[in-house]
């Protein structure tokens, strides 16, 4: 498999995922279903082709770039956000901090519990 083949594999998984999501009207986006399909495919195949690994690693190394076009959409809603800046910024900053704290602490506690019970 070469780079072109790897990109084709990613797109085929996405396309199948999107079709499944549409046909079964699932609330999950096609690419996420595609991710699950590719993951299952790799588990069944029991191996990761080098080129697929390289292509994925390149794509993921630039992942944050891909969010910029959607983020610039902030200009469309600038007025609305400015008029409700306090609840919006509180929900963004505090809400995200609370989520990170709750998730991280819950999982840490359970990982420790598991470790403790095994000893």
């Amino acid at each position, binding site marked *: 498999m070469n780079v072109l083949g790897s990109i084709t594999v990613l797109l085929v998984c*996405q396309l199948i995922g999107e079709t499944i999501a549409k046909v079964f009207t699932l609330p999950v986006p096609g690419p996420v279903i595609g991710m699950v399909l590719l993951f299952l495919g790799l588990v069944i195949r029991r191996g990761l082709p080098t080129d697929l690994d390289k292509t994925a690693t390149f794509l993921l190394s630039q992942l944050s770039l891909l969010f910029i076009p959607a983020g610039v*959409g902030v200009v*469309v809603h600038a007025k609305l956000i400015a008029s409700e800046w306090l609840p919006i910024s509180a929900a963004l900053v505090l809400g*995200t901090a609370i989520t990170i704290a709750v998730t*991280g602490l819950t999982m*840490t506690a359970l*990982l420790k519990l598991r470790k403790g019970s095994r000893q």
Partner: protein
Amino acid sequence: MNAVWPQLAANPLTWLTLTLVVYQAAHWLWRRGRMNPLLNPVLLSIATISAILTLTGIDYARYFSGAHLLHFLLGPATVALAIPLYRQLGQLLRSVWALAAGLLAGSVAAILASLALGWGLGASRQTIMSLAPKSVTSPIAMGIAEQIGGLPSLTAVLVILTGIAGAVGGGWLLDRLHVHDDRARGVAMGTAAHGIGTARALQMGEVTGAFSGLAMGLNGIATALLTPVLVKWLMG
């Protein structure tokens, strides 16, 4: 100049190139600034490009006609998250219950915190509903917002801003809370800050990135199922 500018402004390539140039400049600045979280390249790039569009009077639709190529790549990049996940299969199976519990707690916390803070600080109902699903990846979040009476296009922006908040402050907060396990750090980043949190988690390390990618996908499903129920129960 008067003859050149309209040509440039009308060419979608201009806006794609601008995005790449600005991002690389922001990335350079971030590295020069010893990766200070406040110099987050996504944040800097969005602020710079938004300022350029506002100053030149270019509307978002025209900008997006060029930049959508990058936006399109989000799909295959999301599929590609299967690769770090596959490489961490062993780690994943060993911590599956802790992951499920952390994820569920975080998913509920994200929705409740958005509803409570939005309502408590006097946001309009439409804004509260647009905030509720903001921790999950845009296509899911927009679908949920539409279902519960939010504004999907506003949600898309709030999702990105949430991701930036998580990417900027997440590592610092997890250090303060003494969450040092890479798996827990990854799940926290992915649950709270979807793909942008995952982009940051991948920079922290392979294990962190893999768990973040998985948490992002799973929290999308959990939030899609939980938000309409919690909203109906709490807000009538």
